[in-house]
């Protein structure tokens, strides 16, 4: 009797029995093969962009993914022209400064709203939250007028100023500062640190993953930003990469392999960064997407 009872399946034993790993069956293989095919299709546009940027003109319109005789001639040509070099530098400067500004200010505001109790806190919170509802496109006309009035048109400051702080970043950081125990902050206060030092040396290091997620989002957003830089710049040297590429592609008789080269120049930096920090970036995107 005792033996019979022992082998009676309970939900727990069923769970344990649930094969450590079922041998790969046909269904699983088909699933994998379809996912793989889909994934390859997903990167095809990127692959063709890179492949075409490495082709000689006579090869551009065949369907081969691997060029017969690869060349970096297109890159030399495009970079010697000088404009892409300028646009690249402009994009880097703008994306870096905006990212630094967001990382500092969004976290400072998020921290203050999270850890301080002061009159006006709720109003500031709601006010910043409400700006999430305002689309950028509604603000471009007033921003343009403002830039015209103050002489910001066609300057770095003009391109950057609208994005120096974001409500999205502020709320992302506020969420993450919730995870910092108040005791840490109290202890630092007792140790005689002032509030600025507490924020910078105690709280900030504890939310590094969130800071990185924010930095990735802001950098990518500004690197690819198009409509505002298009509006605020008018001299070719001030264009960012997207604006420059758009005007370059629109010139009469520009060869497609040169456009693909320009497109590759504006895409490869973010792709390379992604391939290096892949796991980290995906985690950051999930964090920002779900918490922000």
């Amino acid at each position, binding site marked *: 009797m005792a033996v019979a009872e022992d082998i009676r399946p309970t939900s727990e034993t069923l769970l344990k029995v649930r094969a450590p790993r079922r041998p790969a069956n046909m269904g699983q293989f088909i699933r994998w093969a379809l996912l793989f095919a889909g994934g390859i299709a997903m990167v095809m546009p990127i692959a063709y962009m890179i492949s075409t940027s490495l082709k000689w003109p006579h090869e551009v319109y065949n369907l081969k993914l691997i060029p017969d005789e690869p060349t970096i001639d297109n890159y030399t040509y495009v970079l010697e022209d000088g404009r892409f070099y300028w646009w690249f530098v402009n994009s880097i400067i703008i994306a870096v400064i905006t990212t630094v500004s967001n990382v500092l200010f969004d976290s400072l505001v998020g921290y203050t709203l999270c850890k301080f109790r002061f009159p006006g806190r709720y109003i500031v919170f709601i006010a910043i939250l409400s700006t999430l509802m305002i689309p950028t496109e509604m603000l471009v006309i*007033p921003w343009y007028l403002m830039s015209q009035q103050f002489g910001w048109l066609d300057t770095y400051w003009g391109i950057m100023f609208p994005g120096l702080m974001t409500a999205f970043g502020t709320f992302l950081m506020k969420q993450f500062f919730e995870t910092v125990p108040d005791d840490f902050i109290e202890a630092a206060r007792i140790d005689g640190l002032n509030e600025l030092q507490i924020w910078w040396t105690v709280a900030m290091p504890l939310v590094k993953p969130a800071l990185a997620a924010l930095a990735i989002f802001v950098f990518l957003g500004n690197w690819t930003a198009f409509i505002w830089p298009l509006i605020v710049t008018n001299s070719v040297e001030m264009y960012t990469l997207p604006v420059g590429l758009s005007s370059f592609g629109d010139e009469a008789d520009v060869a497609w392999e040169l456009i693909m080269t320009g497109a590759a120049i504006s895409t490869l930096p973010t792709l390379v960064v992604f391939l290096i920090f892949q796991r980290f970036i995906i985690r950051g995107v999930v964090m920002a997407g779900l918490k922000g």
Partner: protein
Amino acid sequence: MQLYRNLTIRQKQIVWAWAFLALPVVFYTVIRFYPTANAVLISFQDWNLLGDRTWAGLDNYAKLVADPVFWQVFRNTFAYLILGTPISLVISFIVAYHLDKTRFMHGFLRMLYFLPFMTSAVAMAWVWRWFYQPVPIGLFNNALASIGIPQINFLNSTTNALPAILAPAVWAGLGFQIIIFMAGLRAIPRSYYEAARIDGVSTWTVLWEITLPLLKPTIVFLVVFSSIGFLRIFDHVFNMTTNNPGGPLNSTKPLVLMIYQTAFNSFDMGYAAAQTVVLFLVLLGVSLLQLRILRDR
């Protein structure tokens, strides 16, 4: 300094808090709130940038309602939304659902799907624009020709151009949605699936009765997020139709492109501002509606 020392701890906190917030408060007031109010104000005015701002009352809105191009643009904008959001959500859910069950080379597959999200919309618009060119230039038509299928007129057709422009926009957003869906799938407690397995429930029922209902917060977030994205589509349209932005015959023109042209090609600031107010109301309405529908059910 003496004054500061005499404050209580609580008062010091208030001073610090406002010191931290001083610059940001100025920023949000000057760069967000004032421009918003200004946009609404300009929408009631008549102004071409050079002359005076004159009061126009509701003229700009009346002009908008009477403008056939505006209604065409309005339809286009919703066409991007109504096609783009369901297509991209269904594809990304199917991929995420299966990718979640795949262990072999999981990271590599995920990387393939995510890569397009890291690209620049402008660059990719030009790549796709090249794909869509007629024989002997465009990749798609060359591929079709090589297997003997007659070529398709993508970007110069009033019916095909809008879906053709939508495709790269959907493509670029899939990676993000897949990643978010997978995070949502991971968050569903294993025990629910174990219980269903013990009860011998079919995979299909598990999907409809457990997975999808529990994914609702994720679905709400992605529907709202991607709808807002499609209603604000601009980069792809502008770059794939630079020779005639929004063409052919306005058949691809979304609201943001109309705003851009009215403001910065025709310099009709009042009229453009009225369009931005409409965009704001549309975005607000669509997000509130979706939150309501999806939350209640």
